């Protein structure tokens, strides 16, 4: 009964849960490196709770979604369709892309916006095994001195930051935790 599974796990109280989800994502984007806890969604495997919350909060029929091979299953498609109505597209037209880091590569297949409209770029929802405040050093807007986050590939993400004001943005999810890496964050090793 895959169709019933697809209909479960949405927000219990859509207005309130989506507001909480949005606040958590906003905090994550505004303070790169900060890890926020989210609840409310119970998506189908292999989607994590945090990715589910991000999808329910941000996606609607006007945001094309790209599912990377790691997450491109009928169950995931049915779940996203029932709860958000978002259309599925290839990477070159996606507003959101969902998958593991390896499955989402290469990074240059996603739109990075145009100088007139830098917002016409993809936001990648990267599913990770765990989030931890160790690893690559982050600097930039929203960070007091420096912050640290275990990025899946600091080199590729630093190259993306070098494209500023163009480039893609990342939402990193693991379990019920979410962090974010906007294109404005500078990544150093130290």
């Amino acid at each position, binding site marked *: 009964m895959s*169709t*019933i599974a697809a*209909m*479960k796990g949405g927000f219990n*109280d*859509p207005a309130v849960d989506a507001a909480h989800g949005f606040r958590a994502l906003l905090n994550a984007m505004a303070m790169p490196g900060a890890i926020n806890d989210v609840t409310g969604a119970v998506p189908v495997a292999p989607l994590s709770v945090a990715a589910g919350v991000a999808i329910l909060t941000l996606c609607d029929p006007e945001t094309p979604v790209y599912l990377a091979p790691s997450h491109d299953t009928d169950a995931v498609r049915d779940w996203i369709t029932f*709860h958000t109505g978002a259309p599925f597209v290839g990477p070159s037209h996606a507003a959101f892309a969902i998958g593991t880091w390896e499955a989402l590569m290469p990074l240059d297949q996603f739109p990075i916006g145009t100088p007139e409209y830098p917002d016409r770029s993809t936001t990648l929802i990267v599913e990770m095994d765990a989030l931890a405040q160790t690893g690559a050093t982050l600097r930039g807007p929203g960070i007091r001195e420096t912050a640290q986050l275990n990025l899946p590939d600091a080199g590729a993400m630093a190259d993306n930051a070098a494209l500023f004001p163009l480039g893609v943005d990342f939402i990193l999810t693991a379990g019920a935790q979410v962090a974010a890496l906007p294109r404005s964050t500078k990544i150093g090793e130290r």
Partner: protein
Amino acid sequence: MTQEWNDRKTWMSLLAKVPVEALALAWDEADLGPDYRWLRRPETGAVMVRGRMGGTGLPFNLGEMTVTRCALELADGGAVGHGYVQGRDKGHAERAALCDALMQTEARGAVVETILTPLATQAAQVKGQRAERAAATKVDFFTMVRGE
């Protein structure tokens, strides 16, 4: 009036179009009140109604209409019911979805007997009256043949 209720489309269509009060009355009378869980709480939106001129040809946009929809799952047995109804009445959508869910269970007979059949009869009466009123004002046009 007897009607077969084999096709989900027929009862979904009836539930979507019946007057809010009529369904509320019938629902209270049936007194089924099953436990259920929301899959999608009632939400109101607009849908574009499209039609084809004369039932053929290319579809055109007739206009937008307000629709309220919801989805729920019965606690007992897990039957899933959908309600898509015209207007903004969330209770209407909820009752329609409950009827739809119950039509997939053993309570089917009770739903048909106390809710669907009376409502269908009412709807047919209203339709008949309107057709009669319209028929009374019907004008037939003739073209007189002139000459040979």
